[in-house]
């Protein structure tokens, strides 16, 4: 399967960009790169972004021994109940959805009493290590003093009750990340660090989706590092309290946890570095850079050995998958831009070219870096929407979309393969085994025989695909036979491997 020429296969459509959106869309190479971003979404544009509350909620959600109470009407809690694929090796309290479920009379007379009562009852019953209280849109408007309620409840119960200033309208999802970091900052620095050694790190900005934190933590521990806390994947309040004892903050997902890393640098002098755990290149670089930071030859040697072993373990299958995917074209739309970099590189590993790359919350530096990484002709998008995605997927003749549940129907309706890389997914895509899972998912979707029935493909791709439309797309089919200890060739071993690591964590 060779790549299709963009110029000859572009599909006409009647979708026009809104005037107010034009500066947030650019094609690399067509003009000096200067994309607009970090703006409030254009009203009526059907942004894929959520709100401030969403930003805070997703970041703090994986702290599994804390109580998470949403102060507001019911919707905000209903739609975030058990929403993330963030797994815990112990408590499951984070998977409960607690809401003050404000009613009309609360809106009129204020919700403080209800909040206080709700908190006292929940804390007495569930005995959490700490409680986070999330403000939603109307909390500020009705004048509830959440800080005061939290202070009172904290005094009565003896646990930290932390207000999260996440009123939905007060900014964007990014401001929600910042509110979450401020909330975490109140915990950091309150624990005993006397037993923590110098070769120690915190893992920031990994959320243990499908056990990813466990995979990453295992790598660092195999290198010889002590992982003090994981914020917030499989997170524990007491671990976060002593996070300031670690020698280095290793930060993934630049948007969400950079704030905390900066605060810790200022307060405790903890240095931080940015990494990504998606794809072979970025995963390896993360381990090497962390080893470099400590300047410890043994750490570096162990990292090199591990990378070599892990890569050798997954490469045979990746090569087979690559044969089927060579020349395919992908669109990427992520929450944070940092993940998009890794995805462009991961796709390259699989022989797939990126035609569209965008994010909900990227900043100018992110987009500049993204553009440098991408080929000429790649469409770069900030805070896009379904119509624009559909437009550019058609115009670039894209075969695969990587995004979240909200983007999925756009792909499927256009006969385009899809890979869920959002926080709602249940599979581990980080680390070396995650790369293999990613490759399998992309391969499984792209090579599925179902696309031959897609009316869109039949209409628009007749000339390029007619000859082989009823031929199998895949030369490689995973066997689905679980062979413990092996990775290559099987369909599901990686997941089992991940779970084993998780189980080891529990055992410890």
């Amino acid at each position: 399967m060779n790549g299709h020429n963009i110029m000859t296969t572009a599909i006409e459509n009647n979708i026009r960009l809104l005037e107010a959106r034009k500066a947030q869309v650019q094609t690399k190479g067509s003009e000096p790169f200067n994309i607009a971003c970090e703006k409030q979404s254009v009203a009526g544009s059907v942004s894929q972004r959520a709100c401030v509350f969403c930003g805070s909620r997703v970041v703090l959600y994986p702290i599994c021994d804390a109580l998470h109470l949403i102060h507001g009407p019911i919707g905000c809690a209903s739609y975030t109940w058990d929403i993330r694929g963030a797994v815990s090796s112990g408590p499951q309290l984070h998977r409960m959805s607690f809401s003050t479920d404000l009613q009309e009379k609360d809106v009129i007379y204020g919700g403080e009493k209800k909040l206080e009562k709700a908190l006292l009852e929940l804390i007495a019953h569930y005995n959490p290590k700490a409680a986070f209280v999330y403000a939603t849109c109307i909390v500020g408007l009705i004048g509830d003093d959440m800080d005061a309620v939290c202070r009172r409840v904290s005094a009565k119960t003896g646990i930290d009750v932390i207000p999260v200033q996440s009123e939905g309208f007060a900014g964007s999802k990014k401001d929600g990340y910042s509110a979450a970091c401020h909330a975490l900052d109140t915990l950091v620095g309150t624990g005993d660090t006397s037993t923590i050694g110098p070769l120690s790190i915190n893992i920031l900005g990994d959320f243990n989706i499908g056990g990813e934190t466990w995979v990453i933590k295992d790598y660092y521990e195999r290198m010889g590092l002590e992982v003090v806390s994981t914020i917030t994947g499989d997170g524990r309040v007491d671990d976060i309290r002593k996070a300031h004892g670690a020698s280095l903050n290793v930060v993934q997902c630049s948007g969400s946890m950079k704030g905390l890393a900066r605060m810790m640098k200022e307060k405790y002098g903890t240095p931080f570095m940015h990494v990504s755990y998606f794809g072979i290149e970025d995963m390896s670089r993360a381990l090497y850079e962390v080893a470099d930071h400590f300047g410890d030859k043994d750490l570096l040697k162990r990292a090199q050995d591990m990378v070599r072993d892990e890569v050798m373990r997954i490469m045979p299958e990746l090569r087979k998958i690559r044969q089927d995917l060579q020349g395919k074209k992908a669109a990427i739309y992520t929450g944070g831009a940092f993940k998009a970099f890794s995805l462009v590189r991961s796709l390259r590993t699989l022989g797939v070219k990126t035609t569209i790359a965008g994010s909900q919350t990227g900043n100018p530096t992110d987009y500049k870096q993204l553009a440098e990484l991408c080929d000429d002709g790649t469409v770069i998008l900030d805070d896009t929407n379904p119509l624009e995605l559909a437009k550019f997927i058609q115009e670039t003749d894209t075969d695969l979309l990587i995004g979240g549940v909200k983007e999925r129907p756009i792909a499927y309706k256009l006969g385009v393969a899809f890979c869920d890389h959002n926080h709602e997914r249940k599979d581990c895509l980080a680390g070396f085994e995650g790369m293999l899972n990613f490759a399998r998912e992309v391969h499984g979707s792209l090579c599925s025989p179902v696309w031959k029935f897609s009316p869109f493909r039949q209409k628009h791709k007749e000339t390029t695909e007619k000859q082989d439309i009823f031929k199998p797309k895949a030369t490689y089919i995973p066997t689905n036979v679980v062979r413990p200890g092996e990775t290559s060739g099987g369909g599901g071993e990686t997941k089992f491997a991940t779970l084993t690591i998780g189980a080891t964590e529990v055992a410890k």
Partner: protein
Amino acid sequence: MIVPEPAKSDHFTATRNACKMCTPLGACLAFSGVEGCVPFLHGSQGCATYIRRYLISHFREPMDIASSNFGEHAAIFGGQTNLEQGLANVIRSYEPAVIGIATTCLSETIGDDMPMFLHQFTSKYADPTPLPHLVHASTPSYSGSHFDGYMEAVFALAKTLAEKGQTQATLVNMIPGVVSPADIRHLKDILSDFELDYVMLPDYSERMDGVSWDDYQRIPEGGTTVDELKSMGSAAGSIEFATTHHKSQTAGEYLASACDVENHRMDMPIGIAATDRFFDALEKLSGKATPRRHQMDRGRLVDSYVDGHKYCFGKRAILYGEEDFVIALASFLCEIGIVTVLIASGGKSGKLLENIERVMPDPSVATVMDGVDFEEITDAAMDMHADLIIGNSKGFKLSQKLDVPLVRVGLPIHDRMGASRIVHLGYQGTQYLYDLIVNTLLDVKQRTSEVGYTYI
């Protein structure tokens, strides 16, 4: 097997794992049943995005919901500018026939005067290009559940668009409530079989359960047209499945009072008795006897009730969901000898109990709970020795905890395929539910048998 756990007597002020969604979600679903309509939420961006994700996970279809995207400025000074910009941008990008505008807790709390805003928008921009119809539903999420929001949007569509006219003898308004796309398709078939013309309010049977496309559709095809909605005022009658609605008027009541269209308000037709009442109304409105294929459906349903009666008798079921839905299901389960031991809803119309008492011959067997969440349902269910749980997919945890199978029906179903294709209504829908329920019971019987019978 029931997992023993100490009964909890704690009272909780907080809602824990809600058994309801918010009013704007219901409104967005109802608005998507109008051809060329873009649902629009007047509030912050998150509401639209969360509701989109929630509905996409259930229907697996595109679900664009626009937002006026409040920032701090709008929250303090009012959302008129954002509303106008938002509407203008939706009109530019989607070229809609209708924009269905629902408010949120934010815009309701700050007291945005929506009728005035929309009036000013219309007078400012209507000339020279005609604007889409703007339909506004007031849906503060601190008041009621998604069910109320849905009913409010349906009411707003009728009130805004229906025009009183000369009565058309064969035209019927069909107002089904919160049902699946397959239910709507089935109702359309039934109405056509009675040779009735109909206006379906709303009709998301194509849009929320659509075909694969050959070109991208900015607004997916399907839905009741504005002209059809206008003609509701000249129908010979309305059939409305609405049991517990308690706020202002229903759409059917409005059409009765404003346009003299006789309203036949009844329970959702699940089970033989309730479906008979629906078909009686159709016979009356059409002047025709029930067509043979539906008589045959009914006959087969009765026949299957008999064939499977021993598997059902005395089995104990837990029901939860929208109040109208659980009332209809409870009535159906009584017909087949299943004892409904717990009936629960996150809705709180105040009318659940009286209606359960009406539809169940012996309501004393059932615990009826309204305004409850899943944790309260779980606490109540612990010592009920249930054999079966019937409701949406959010009861999975309950099912796991009780080790009792869950029959997934209604909205939302986030963990299985095909939610849109479940028919719940009419003889055919009842037949599907009946087979599903009996087979679930048989599956337990077979799996828990050491012998492993292959004939049951």
